[in-house]
């Protein structure tokens, strides 16, 4: 099985939590948050990541009860064979939806830079990388994450500093103008974004060399990701104001292009490219492993590697389904409350069943 061969260190696990938490979410979360909650969207992001941290703690407790099984593997143990297998399949299918959406986001935004290059080619090139890394194994991904997460965090920070002369933090006032209900409505979209990293962790957690330290990774990693996104949201709103941010296809990209420091430091698009492609790489693999490993374990296969190429081809083909960018971004927000939210809600449920049934395999 996948977790017998491969081990990841505490530091790598920590970076994986951040990778899942920021991923390419920083490119897509601003629009739905502004549309739902206006200028108070940062609050819903903050609450979402706090909830996600709690969810992570629940998962760590659950994972410690089954130290050598992944989420898909202990579902039948906890919920009974039939229901467990059924829900496991639902998980695998749900995860399969994610990857096409991410690669579609990538191809759509790439249209600005390479308007005549075929979109499928751009997607395919990205997938060649993904397939290569997937064949090399999960350890390789964990090691690249260690490097790329630092690049992503550093670049986001640099962009926020670069734009700081042009921002007006007054745009964030008035606070909670329309009461709390828009913020809670926005949580339906924002919490699933935050929960993605925990759902991912459900699969790699047994690979950790020191599983006890998983709690620490969650407690530090998720808040870091959340804090960066909150700060980024505040910067975007302070720069554009809520009405403008709601209409921009990519507020972060718009912001990056505007940065001109003392007339000679400009052209931050290159930095954005670096940040963006590495974040897409992180996010693509987050959601490439899940369905593959999940499916392999659901079918009790010895190895997930034969599934890599068929999986990649299916993902690429599925990504071509949305007719245009409006539909694609609509799907992007639609998947959150209807697909990820139920999946995330199931983790505490499974945990409760496990506690009530006093299931614990850690002493074996």
């Amino acid at each position, binding site marked *: 099985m996948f977790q017998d061969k491969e081990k990841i260190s505490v530091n790598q696990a920590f970076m994986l939590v951040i990778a899942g938490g920021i991923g390419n979410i920083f490119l897509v979360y601003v629009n739905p948050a502004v549309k739902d909650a206006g200028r108070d969207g940062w609050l819903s992001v903050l609450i979402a990541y706090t909830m996600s941290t709690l969810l992570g703690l629940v998962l760590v407790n659950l994972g410690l009860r089954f130290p050598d099984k992944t989420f898909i593997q202990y579902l039948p143990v906890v919920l009974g064979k039939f229901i467990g297998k059924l829900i496991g399949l639902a998980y695998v299918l749900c995860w399969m939806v994610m990857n096409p959406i991410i690669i579609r986001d990538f191809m759509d935004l790439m249209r*600005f*830079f*390479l*308007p*005549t*290059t*075929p979109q499928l080619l751009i997607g395919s*090139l990205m997938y060649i990388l993904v397939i290569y890394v997937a064949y090399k194994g999960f350890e390789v991904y964990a090691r690249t994450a260690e490097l790329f997460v630092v690049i992503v965090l550093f670049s986001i920070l640099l962009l926020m500093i670069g734009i700081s002369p*042009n921002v007006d933090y*007054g745009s964030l*006032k*008035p606070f909670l*103008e329309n009461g709390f209900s828009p913020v809670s409505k926005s949580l339906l979209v924002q919490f699933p974004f935050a929960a993605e990293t925990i759902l991912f962790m459900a699969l790699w957690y047994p690979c950790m060399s020191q599983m006890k330290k998983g709690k620490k990774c969650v407690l530090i990693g998720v808040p870091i990701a959340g804090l960066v996104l909150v700060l980024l949201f505040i910067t975007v709103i302070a720069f*554009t*104001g809520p*009405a*403008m941010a709601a209409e921009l296809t990519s507020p972060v990209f*718009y912001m990056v*292009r*505007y940065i*001109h420091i003392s007339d000679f430091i400009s052209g931050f698009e290159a930095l954005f490219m670096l940040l963006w492609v590495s974040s897409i790489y992180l996010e693509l693999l987050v959601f490439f492993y899940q369905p593959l490993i999940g499916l392999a374990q659901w079918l009790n296969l010895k190895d997930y590697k034969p599934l890599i190429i068929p999986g990649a081809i299916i993902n690429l083909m599925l990504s071509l389904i949305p007719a245009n960018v409006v539909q694609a971004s609509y799907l992007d927000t639609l998947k959150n409350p209807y697909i990820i939210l139920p999946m995330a809600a199931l983790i505490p449920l499974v945990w409760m069943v496990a506690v009530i049934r006093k299931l614990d395999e850690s002493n074996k």
Partner: protein
Amino acid sequence: MKIKLTFILILTSVFLSGCWDLVEIKDRAIITAFGIDKSDMDGKITFTLQTIIPSRISTPMKTSPEMKPSVRVVSKTTDSFADAIREYAKQAERRTYLMQNRIIIIGEDMAKEGLTPAMDFFMRHPDSFQGAWVLICKGKASEIIKWNSEVERIPADFIEELVKTRNFICSSSVENIHTFVNKLSTKPTSPATAMIELVDSGNNETEARLSGIAVFKKDKMAGMLDNLETKGYTWINNERGRRLFEIGDIGKANVKMTHEIEGSRTKIIPELINGKPAILIKVNATTKIYVQDGSLDLDSQDTLKKLEKMLEEEIKSQIEACLNKALKEYKTDIFGFGEKIHRKYPKEWKKFKVKWEDALADLKVITDVNVKTKSTGMIIDTIKP
């Protein structure tokens, strides 16, 4: 191993060059200024594009008797923005490139029609740079775009410098695409940006200069501010640059003196007085004496105090002139007062916002100006004969 490495390097050079979207620099028509006018023909728009001729830019400046202009100016009358770019590309056999465009000049007629379509184009186009300055011109924009500068090889560069040096002399206040659209999208606020005009400078030469400010109501131009009101606007809008400041009579007859404003800071504080909105404008400025004609005794503290008072009165009157014009005559909120009240008093704002534009004329605005004269320059009093 080496063969593998070579193979990978060759492969990356194939994939990384982006061959589909490669546009050589010589195939690009780099637009430096963009003019938009309302055409005489019904419903059509005239576009004037100023593009660089690369071969004339690259050669170093030579003192040749016949200096050819380094830019090419083309006017097209079309239905829409997309048509303009296409028509231009047809003629130029080059791909137009908007990223270097720093100046957008809009004719007065066009501005009065509304700028939403223009702003939509500049926001939507992937090439366009949102830091480009928006200027409104009296008369036709095409004339300013066609105008050739004596100083700069690219006239658009001259205009850009003009806009930038306003920070040192603070003669006006200019918005770029981003700030313009930002103000449009903030509901009660309307934008206002500088106007540009060509003036005769003698010797059969004309020069471009900023004069006055175009005031908008939503996206339509409502009118303009004259020089005095423009000065008032730069105070309210917190332009921090240096500027010269003349005052006439100071108690005595015909004292001519000029101050230099070294730094200023304006705060707009919204208040509620008896449930009604009011605005407090607080200006803090430090000045330096620039020149005086010798009839004042600058050694005494009293004179300096008196001078400060005079300056304060002068600044106040400029601000009031600007407020009167914008709030009472044009009834537009170019200062963002409404948004300031919205931010501080969100509950009360819900009542005010319905009739905000009508309420502007009766809005109570208190100006509080505080001037400190810090320095008298290299000498204290005039060295008298």
